[in-house]
């Protein structure tokens, strides 16, 4: 005798078509100019920043840099919905999200320019810095959420990662703990269809990544990651639940990596040009701009002004970045332990001499 013991379904939320036209009745707030025009401004800034960062890398002024091209809506909406007290556990494409949280743009450049001070920013006092080893941050997020819960603080933790990250055991372990401990954790997967050269279908045989939540017994949502209205609804709801003690949630945001993986990558080696061209049809900026233009909230002159402002802000940050001298060599030891062990003092001198000279 076979008896059904578990039934479920997972839904995709989407409000706008790729051309910015509504698919359906829209939520009330989305008829107002705010927050959508703010979203759009930040998305423009993100894209401009990206372009500049890539240009800096190409001219030897920045290290390897991972563009956020195509992920702007996810980051911008998340950044706006998070409260100051919520805690961010980002991944390495979340530049603009970190900026919205207060990290100076210069610090983002410092980080990718090989300077730890990029992680020291005051704007994000309790947020975690980027974790380079994939998926490891998902466990930190569980721990941060556990600390909020332990302290009875009604805030949420937002953690982001890529589609590739969902294959690493850490991801499953973090969701599992979040389920058992009922943690205030909102896990957002930026499913941009690629993990460097490995396409989504070679990463996992499941039709959605959202269903990874089922393994942990927690709610799962799929959302169009190019649709700011849908993102706002789904992420906003998850944040409210988490803050209200209603537990964790996994959100799969469908996007597309419109850039190379990083500046060290050449996606043309493994990606058909047609696919990329098609993906540009879903560009989140285009979609939101069209929607705002249709409502009369946006036009060419606003666009130009917005671009100009972004350029100025970026230019200033780049100048600040380039004018920042390297950190003194002893910083290499200064932050290793709470107090520097006596034994290591002599090595500071060695470090100074190495690499051809004093600082």
């Amino acid at each position, binding site marked *: 005798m076979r008896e059904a013991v578990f039934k479920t379904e997972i839904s995709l939320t989407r409000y706008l078509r790729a051309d910015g036209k509504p698919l359906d009745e829209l939520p009330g707030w989305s008829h107002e100019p705010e927050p959508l025009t703010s979203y759009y401004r930040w998305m423009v800034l993100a894209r401009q920043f990206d372009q500049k960062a890539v240009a800096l890398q190409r001219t030897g002024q920045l290290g390897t840099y991972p563009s956020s091209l195509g992920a702007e809506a996810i980051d911008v909406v998340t950044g706006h919905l998070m409260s100051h007290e919520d805690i961010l556990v980002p991944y390495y494409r979340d530049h603009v999200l970190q900026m919205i949280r207060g990290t100076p743009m210069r610090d983002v450049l410092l980080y990718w320019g090989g300077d730890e001070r990029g992680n020291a920013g005051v704007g994000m006092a309790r947020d975690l810095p980027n974790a380079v080893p994939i998926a490891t941050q998902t*466990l*930190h997020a*569980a721990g941060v959420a556990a600390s909020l819960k*332990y302290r009875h603080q009604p805030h949420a933790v937002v953690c982001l990662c890529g589609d590739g990250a969902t294959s690493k055991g850490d991801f499953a372990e973090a969701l599992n*703990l979040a389920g058992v401990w009922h943690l205030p954790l909102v896990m957002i997967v930026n499913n941009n269809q690629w993990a460097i050269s490995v396409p989504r279908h070679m990463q996992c045989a499941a039709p959605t990544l959202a269903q990874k939540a089922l393994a942990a017994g927690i709610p799962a949502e799929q959302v169009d990651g190019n649709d700011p209205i849908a993102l706002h609804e789904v992420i906003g709801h998850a944040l409210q639940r988490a803050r209200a003690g209603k537990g964790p949630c996994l959100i799969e945001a469908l996007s597309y990596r419109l850039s190379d993986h990083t500046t060290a990558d050449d996606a043309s080696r493994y990606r058909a040009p047609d696919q990329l061209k098609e993906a540009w049809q879903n560009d989140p900026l285009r979609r939101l701009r069209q929607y705002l233009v249709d409502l009369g909230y946006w036009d060419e002159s606003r666009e130009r002004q917005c671009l100009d402002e972004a350029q100025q802000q970026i230019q200033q940050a780049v100048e600040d970045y380039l004018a920042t001298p390297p950190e003194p060599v002893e910083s290499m030891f200064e932050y290793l332990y709470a107090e520097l062990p006596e034994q290591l003092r002599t090595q500071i001198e060695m470090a100074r001499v190495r690499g051809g000279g004093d600082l």
Partner: protein
Amino acid sequence: MNEPICLLEAVNLALARALDDDPEVILFGEDIGHNGGVFRATDGLAKRFGAHRVVDTPLAENMIAGTAVGMASQGIRAVVEIQFMGFIFPALEQLIAHAARLRHRTRGRLSCPMVLRAPYGGGIHAPEHHSESTEALLAHIPGLRVVIPSSPARAYGLLLGAIRCDDPVIFLEPKRIYRASRTLVEDSGAALPIDRCFTLREGADLSLISYGAMIPECLAAADNLAERGIDSEVIDVASLNPIDYDTLLASVSKTGRAVIVHEAPGKGGVGADISAVLNEQLWGQMRAPVMRVTGLDTVMPYYRNEQHYLPGVSDILDAVDKSLEAGRNEILQATGSG
């Protein structure tokens, strides 16, 4: 406490004290709650402090370490248990890539005040993977502290020191001597420094340098040597990272002879590091080559043969004899080598 207690009970006492003193100390790990841990190190603590402070976790060491890093990043002192050191490997990515670096990475904005406790070592007739001594893997990682007690009093004091420390500390408990002896340990709340060696016995002829479960073996060897009129100094390294070389160098520059003892394999073991430093720093002052008495460079055998793997008193005495012997020929040899 007015009863003498064993090392294991001293661990329990220190944990209780830490939980009592600081509401932001949390314990978690597999089976540490109701069950009190498979060795009973946390016995009674869940009942006394509540299941929200002494917490059972799902089975995943990587998760335990990573969650501890996350909590510690927010200032909570996460004291976690890995059931056996043989199961610490899944936690290494979090320990090496994150715990050790969080302060460094953020230029001091965040830190990682966590303690990861694990019983280590052989000699208890346990199944495979329950007898490992892989402390060298951890002691190699800048940013981690690695501490090993060798007596009830040091277990109590060092564990309190580890919990109060603002750095991540790996606290390895020599399970072979968990219940080996009992002494009075005052529950004074006083921590011991976690970056110092302990000189357990002073002596002029030779330095026996060791830690953990090999300390009783070294003390027994020292007794034996004393009967033969040889006066050995016994030093408990206690902190494997950083190592208190001031104490070690002072001892060996006095005695001119060192025998280092541990149960981990010799190759790449902590003893190699100590040997290298002593040789570098005390060139010309040594009366014999620094000797090492260690576990063998092979897989720890299943328990039926484990006694053939672990060093014991007679192995230490053999090494001491060789050291004394070498010392006798020393000037001759050194002159002959030019």
